[in-house]
């Protein structure tokens, strides 16, 4: 098991090196960093001095090593736009996005998994079919339309929920959380719902198709032939066997939600990483973009590692193979 994790960590290091090379290329070769930093009045000599002091005249390999070392030690550099340290900017934005992503994931699981099981077991039933059609509409409509639609109904017409921003937050150290105030939770609801709808549909359809396959398998037939009660067959025997592929997809999706919640964050003016990324693109803030790229890659690597470990928790066969 330990060897397995060690091997996966080694692979992760290679992935991270490759991504940081990409980020470095972006940072170094998309436009001239110095030209973007300085105003029009700066003389050529001053520009040259800045270039020298930033180490931009060093050999490329040295530059990359410095870049990678800085990233690895948490020194992310400064934003061109705000002149703030990028680490500070990201730390202030990260909790908002993570909380949004987690809540939307929970919504999608709480609704998607039971709905998937229900539609698999009641194939062709009226309720099952209506669920399928409704969720099909859910994926077909772009996220921002759903967001605007929700704002229109719950924010404008009914006036129940706030339509933008995080509302009141409580700071625990540097982490500002929405979870501890009523207003924060209310603010969270609409964007999380918007973000959750698409995941929900995917989770539901995946659980449904996996469940249908598993229900046809011999061991379910054998369990039925032994007279095991239906609830245990569905939830203990069948559901567990559908989890491995479902977890893979949910893991990847969760990564995607956090990395690319840009649209939702911008519709709801949610001060998260997505909005930060959007601003960085608008102002060609390349250092922020490259750090963002590396962090997102890191997150995917971590999620994948967790997913792999979950496999081992669920499936004893994987556990055995990993132990070897």
């Amino acid at each position, binding site marked *: 098991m330990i060897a397995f994790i060690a091997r996966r960590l080694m692979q992760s290091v290679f992935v991270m090196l490759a991504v940081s090379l990409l980020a470095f290329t972006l940072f170094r070769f998309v436009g001239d960093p110095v030209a973007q930093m300085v105003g029009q009045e700066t003389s050529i000599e001053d520009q040259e001095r800045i270039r020298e002091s930033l180490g931009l005249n060093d050999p490329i390999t040295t530059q990359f090593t410095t870049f990678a070392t800085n990233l690895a030690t948490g020194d992310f550099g400064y934003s061109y736009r705000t002149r703030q340290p990028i680490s500070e900017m990201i730390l202030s934005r990260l909790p908002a996005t993570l909380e949004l992503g987690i809540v939307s994931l929970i919504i999608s699981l709480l609704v998607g998994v039971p709905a998937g099981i229900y539609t698999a077991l009641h194939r062709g039933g009226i309720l099952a079919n209506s669920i399928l059609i409704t969720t099909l509409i859910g994926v077909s409509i772009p996220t921002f339309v759903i967001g605007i639609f929700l704002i229109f109904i719950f924010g404008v017409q009914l006036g129940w929920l706030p339509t933008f921003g995080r509302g009141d937050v409580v700071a625990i150290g540097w982490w500002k959380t929405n979870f501890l105030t009523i207003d924060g939770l209310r603010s969270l609801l609409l964007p999380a719902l918007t973000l959750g709808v698409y995941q929900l549909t995917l989770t539901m359809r995946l659980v449904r198709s996996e469940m249908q396959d598993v229900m046809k398998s011999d061991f379910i*037939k054998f369990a*039925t032939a032994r007279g095991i009660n239906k609830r245990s067959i569905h939830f203990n025997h069948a559901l567990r066997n559908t989890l491995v592929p479902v977890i893979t997809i949910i893991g990847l999706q969760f990564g995607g939600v956090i990395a690319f919640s840009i649209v939702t964050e911008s519709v709801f003016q949610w001060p998260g990483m997505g909005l930060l990324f959007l601003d960085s693109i608008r102002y060609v803030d390349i250092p922020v973009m490259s750090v963002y790229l590396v962090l997102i890659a890191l997150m995917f690597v971590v999620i994948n590692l967790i997913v792999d470990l979950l496999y081992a928790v669920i499936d004893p066969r994987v556990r055995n193979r990993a132990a070897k």
Partner: protein
Amino acid sequence: MTHSTQNFAKHQTMTSLLDVTDLTVSIPSRFGEFKAVDSVNLSIKAGEIHGLVGESGAGKSTIGAAIIGLLEHPAFIESGSIRLTGEEITNLDDDTYHLLRGNRISMIFQDPQTSLNPLLKISDQLIETIQQHKALDFQAARQLAIELLEETGIESAEQRMDEYPHQFSGGMRQRVVIAMALCTDPELIIADEPTTALDVSVQKQILKLIRELAQQRQVGVILITHDIGVIAEITDNVTVLRNGRIIESGPTIQVLGTPAQDYTRALMAAVPRLDKRIERFVNIVNEDKSIEGEATWTISGASAEHATQWLLTSKTATPTTTDSLKNTTPPILEVNDLSVTFGKKSQWFIKQPGFKALKNVSLSIRRGEVLGIVGESGSGKSTLAKAIVGLVPTSSGDMRFNGQVLPDANARARNHPARRDIQMVFQDPYSSLNNRRTVEAILTEPLTFYGLAKKGPDSKKLVASVLELVEMPQRAMLKYPHQFSGGQRQRIAVARALMARPSFLICDEPTSALDVSIQAQLLNLLKDLQSHFGLTILFISHNLAVVRQMADHVVVLKSGEEIEQSESELFFSSPKAEYSQQLLRETPSLQMVRG
């Protein structure tokens, strides 16, 4: 004693355990209703083992599913009745039926690899089943589970029961399945091909276990199988089915000893015999009526003779009969000290020694000879075939083909002449043909790939001719593999091998996925091809009786090692190695009919 067993004891004298009368199961389809089971009558007493035997499509599994109330949608019981100790159980509502399942009727499935939940411990699955039907607390249920596992022959059951299914071997797993089917004291067990996925030695033990349990516990057993040998070995009574109808029914000794019906006789004649070699099998049936009448569609100039001509003009095939060749020519293939190791790797932190699938095996085959390779699963038979055909790399030893060194998979170039000259027919005709290509495309590929003919009228003519040679209508070339039955597909697979004009054919269990009648036809075909074209065949099978019918020489493998190598008739009359004797003893055959 539970209520149900008392009930059963009361009924035992009056009526049989299970009565099936005039059972008809229909499956609605686009072309009207198809009767999968047609007016079937069965009667089973407690402690009796009743065999249902027949080829695929005979409806034997459907009868089993109907009895336990697990017919798959859209199949339904159209008419007739099923009575368990006199009580009508046909068309009970699902919840009432569910109370019967496991409690009074239980089932054993074919493949122990798939019939246990891979994610749950054996103990959890057993205890859950016990607690479902009996008011026992966890400890008592666990104790009962341990006893049951011991009864079915699992050693150190107490420790092993907390393992997962994948930690058990196939035979052990089937014992666990049987323990699970027994754990609620059912009155009737339906065993659907319970030993088909197992090796002969394990099969023997499992059949013995079923026999003992039936007698000791007075359980009625319905044994569904395609294997007449199994029927002969274990059943008291047998019902022969064909296309959903009963052909013949009665005590096993009578039905198999003096069969009254032609079909039963033919079915038995088609079973390869272990006790003697027969030149040709009796042909029972025309495989499929739908392809008759298609014989009128032909390509001009295409005929079996054309194919024969073409195959004989190749440089390697020799147009003489095999008899004159035997013992005179040098070996076409020599294998010396061949070993194959899987999974050997040293990667970062891990060094795996690997698993030796084949250990220092040596053999040689003369031109025109059939060499039979026999052994149980895991003996390395298929690995040997794959090493020769160049699919798996070898770790040591060498091979010589036609006197030339034959490089292993890694060193053998794509255009090495042996890649054409050695062809392979795989076990499963359902997965060995590409379902998205027409038969013509499948058969033309070897021609163009090896540069034997240009795509066009020539290749069309050859494809049609070779199809004719393997006794398929020429029109078959227009269709896709899924439109054919298993036997027809295997013929197409043989045709594909022939398209390369090989001199050496490797058949890896070519008939084990087929019914006996179809197996007989295919074996006849292989014999014909072999004698016409002087083909050399490496024939791999776990079925000793089949090998006896085909092989001139026999090699016995066990766990990758060579146990015995001998001339075929000599081997079957007086095997030297103890393991070979055991294999021969354990192969079920018609001679074992219970007295």
